[in-house]
């Protein structure tokens, strides 16, 4: 929310004239740019549109490949099977990308740039009560989405997003987690998903010979473990990204969900 405050400040500058010595010249330049740009972009749009329209009527090869191998995947929903089994490698990298983005945000350390004190006020009765009511419901929805992913639309990413949303809601309502939990436990949760992915990758490399190639009988179990930890990590990472400030290890810590 620190982030949100500062972004609001930046957004207020949106309509200010561009930082430039001679504004009239820059307007002319912008007009010239637009005139130059429009035909180029229309050509690009036409090319992309043609590419979309000239695609074959039905997708070839990949859907059949997924459907033929569904019995080996351990789940019955094709999207989850692709995410966690057939293309588990992609998902592993996505988790690492999330972690990397958080590390980059933390290392940029925008606390230094903060020059205005934040308004601190107790949430109103409605917000307070609503948050208390909604948070358990959102956690329940998270669990449901996680579990239903095996056979219907749902899964780790959706569940993680809902979890992050509940964290953001709590943060906006002024709820804070104690410093003890943000120091080490938060970091454990953040790396739980990626590290479990890496552990399972190594194990499958050793025993099955291929990266993330689960044994068919245990595939469902592997996917549930991976998805649960990935959900926690995604939720915690997104909520931590929303704060945008690295929680201090010692006193005066910030918080996550």
């Amino acid at each position, binding site marked *: 929310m620190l982030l949100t405050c500062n972004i609001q400040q930046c957004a207020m*500058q949106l309509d200010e004239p561009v930082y430039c010595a001679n504004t009239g010249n820059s307007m002319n330049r*912008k007009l010239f740019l637009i005139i130059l*740009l429009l035909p180029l*972009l*229309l050509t690009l749009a036409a090319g992309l549109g043609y590419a979309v329209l000239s695609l074959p009527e039905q997708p070839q090869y990949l859907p059949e490949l*997924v459907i033929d191998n569904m019995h080996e995947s351990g789940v019955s929903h094709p999207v989850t099977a692709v995410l966690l089994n057939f293309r588990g490698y*992609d*998902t592993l990298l996505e988790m690492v990308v999330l972690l990397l983005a958080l590390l980059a945000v933390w290392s940029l350390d925008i606390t230094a740039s903060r020059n205005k004190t934040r308004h601190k006020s107790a949430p109103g009765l409605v917000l307070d009560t609503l948050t208390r009511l909604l948070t358990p419901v959102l956690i329940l929805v998270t669990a449901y989405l996680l579990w239903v992913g095996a056979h219907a639309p749902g899964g780790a990413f959706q569940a993680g997003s809902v979890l992050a949303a509940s964290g953001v809601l709590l943060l906006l309502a002024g709820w804070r987690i104690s410093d003890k939990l943000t120091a080490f436990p938060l970091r454990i949760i953040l790396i739980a998903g990626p590290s479990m992915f890496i552990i399972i990758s190594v194990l499958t490399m050793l025993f099955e010979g291929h990266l993330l190639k689960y044994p068919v009988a245990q595939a469902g179990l592997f996917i549930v473990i991976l998805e649960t930890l990935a959900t926690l990590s995604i939720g915690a990472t997104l909520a931590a990204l929303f704060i945008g400030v690295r929680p201090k290890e010692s006193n005066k810590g910030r918080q996550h969900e």
Partner: protein
Amino acid sequence: MNPAMFFALIGVGLFCLGLFSLIINSHLLRKILAINIMGSGVFLVLVALAKRAENMPADPVPHAMVITGIVVAISATALALTLMLRVASETGHATLVDEAEK
């Protein structure tokens, strides 16, 4: 033209609109929003093209790509916003100034 193609073309349009806005606007917040609109266009193309034929089940591979892509787009946006705040705090305004123009 079936609905899938219609939505895919809308996605192409969103992509080009975002690209236009990305090039024209100098404020970094507008640029970040433009990149997000471009991303949404790409997601729309992928989701729409996954189910092109009426009688076939949807292709799960693009759907999986979009699911992970959305979450990655969120984190990339957060990183971009942090970078913008850093630029704003260093220079006082959230725009990139052409060094040659000064």
